[in-house]
């Protein structure tokens, strides 16, 4: 186990290093992206630009610039070129919002995805299965910025106008500490919008897995043992069908935290890490983009490792350390 962790930490460092280098280099080849020019404001003099360039170290070699950028990132001194605010601080501020969105949505899509997958698998070939299959495909095909915008407009805005009160709020975020109920109230639509795609996807994947598993010999054995259909289904069919779903869940969750929720956050104006990244990208503001990218990469790699550990626990045929068993 310790060897596995050590190996994973090393590879995580390597991935983060590679991501940082690539993100950093991209900014040096994007045309029209001289940060000094952008920071100097409208119609600057050549001297002003040169002064900024020297002050911020843009005249140094790329390698030195990379070094100082990384140093700033890890010492928490990274400043946005446009807002002049501390980048790590901003991410830290957005994190509870992003986590609220991601955790809630992940729970919702897992529950509904598994429920729907189980139901459609049990009714495979019947009308209800076909209907839900179409619905799942519609869900998978609807882009979140579109369904989110529709929800926001019709449920958040129009409906409130008609009803005279806000059944669903029109975007925005309320801290959990401030009012748990309002927090929930403001997250229902974003959670739903973000979950729809995953519910459709997970239910399809699980349905397929269950239908494969149900024909396995060991399921026949379980029936021949005189177990109840419920035990057969939950202990033998579902347990084995869930292994890939759990893997998927861990990875998707990490992706959503690490920037996958950019669109949802923006549409519903949640001001989370994703929206911060979206704003920064709009202004080609290098420090926040670099920091958020690293932050996202960290989560993806981190959850990858967790998924591997969980995977080995779920499926005893998989061992984390090579040479442990055959």
């Amino acid at each position, binding site marked *: 186990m310790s060897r596995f962790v050590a190996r994973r930490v090393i590879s995580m460092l390597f991935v983060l290093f590679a991501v940082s280098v690539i993100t950093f280099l991209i900014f040096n080849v994007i045309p029209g992206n001289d940060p000094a020019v952008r920071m100097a404001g409208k119609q600057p003099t050549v001297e002003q630009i040169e002064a900024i360039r020297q002050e911020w170290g843009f005249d140094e070699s790329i390698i030195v610039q990379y070094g100082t950028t990384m140093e700033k990132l890890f010492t928490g001194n990274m400043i946005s070129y446009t807002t002049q605010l501390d980048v790590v601080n901003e991410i830290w501020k957005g994190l509870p919002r992003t986590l609220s969105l991601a955790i809630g949505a992940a729970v919702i899509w897992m529950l509904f995805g598994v429920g729907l997958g189980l139901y459609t698998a049990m009714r495979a070939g019947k009308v209800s299965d076909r209907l839900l299959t179409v619905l799942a495909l519609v869900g998978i095909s609807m882009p979140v910025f579109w369904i989110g915008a529709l929800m926001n407009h019709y449920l958040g805005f129009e409906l409130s106008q008609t009803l005279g009160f806000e059944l669903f709020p029109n975007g925005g975020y309320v801290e959990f500490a401030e009012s748990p109920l309002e927090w929930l109230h403001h997250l229902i639509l974003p959670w739903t919008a973000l979950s729809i795609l995953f519910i459709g996807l997970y239910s399809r994947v699980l349905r397929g897995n269950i239908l494969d598993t149900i024909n396995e010999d*060991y399921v*026949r*054995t379980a*029936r*021949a*043992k*005189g*177990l109840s259909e419920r035990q057969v289904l939950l202990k033998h069919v579902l347990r084995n069908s869930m292994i890939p779903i759990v893997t998927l869940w861990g990875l998707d969750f990490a992706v959503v935290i690490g920037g996958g929720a950019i669109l949802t956050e923006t549409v519903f104006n949640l001001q989370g890490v994703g929206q911060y990244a979206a704003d920064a990208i709009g202004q080609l503001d290098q420090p926040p983009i670099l920091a958020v990218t690293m932050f996202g990469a960290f989560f993806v790699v981190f959850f990858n490792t967790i998924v591997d550990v969980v995977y080995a626990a779920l*499926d005893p045929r998989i061992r984390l350390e090579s040479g442990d068993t055959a």
Partner: protein
Amino acid sequence: MSEPLLEVDDLRVSFATEDGSVQAVDGVSFEVKPGEVLAVVGESGCGKSVTAMTLMGLTRGSNATISGRATVGGVELIEASDEDLRDVRGEKLAMIFQDPMTSLNPVYRVGDQIAEQILAHRDVSKQEAADRAIELLDAVGIPAPADRARAYPHEFSGGMRQRAMIAMGLSLEPPMLIADEPTTALDVTIQAQILRLLKNLNAERGLAVMLITHDLGVVADIADRVLVMYAGRVVETGTLEQIFYDPQHPYTWGLLGSIMRLDRPRADRLAQIKGQPPSLLSPPEGCHFRPRCPHAFDRCTEIPPLEQRGGTHGHADRCWLSGEQKKTLRVLESGDIGLEMPAA
């Protein structure tokens, strides 16, 4: 004469498929007495596994039509509710399967899988069930059973997995075990061990065994009585001696003729039965073996009933040929007894 333990009467199973109805089992009747070993022999697709699985209620499904009667220890199986059937499974009738590699759930420990069955049927604690599982593993000859109970199926060899399956089958001490090709997926030396184990369980515990196989060598080893099946029907039934030394049906002659024997001159190629088993979608009229049978005549377009013709008491077959005709036509040693030597 003791009462039969398992009685099957006119069992019919058909499956609806996209191409039409497949009559997999077509009026099968037989019985198994307590402590008896019945071998069911036939080619792949002759309905022997479907018969066994139907007894266990494993062929129930929206596309299967099942009729006939079957009872084990007086309990009706075909009409039984799912609830009642659960009490039969493992308690009155246990089943082990062809491929021990895939018959155990890969994510649970072997001991737990055995204990699971005990817990589902008996009011015992988890610890008692686990201890019982270890005892059972010991009884089927697994060394260091307490350790092995904690192992996962992938840590077992094929033979050990089949032993574990047998241990599972024995866990509720049923009077009868159905073994569906239990040695087919195993190599020859392990086959012999598993057969010996079944034989011992039969001798020591009086366990009745319905052994499904296509391997007559296996049959000769342990069977008391033999049921020969062809294309969904029983074509011949009798004691081991009757079937091996006085076979009545041309199909049985073919089966016996195709065994490779060390006490005969070596043939260039193995003997085989000419032709293919019929499609069960549209089986031939009358005797199903007719298209492949060199001795077929007019009457074979009618279905011959299963009754004693030649042979001795308890020996029945489905062939219109008279006992006398069979004696002259049947020459086991030559190449034309319902089978032919293929041209080189």
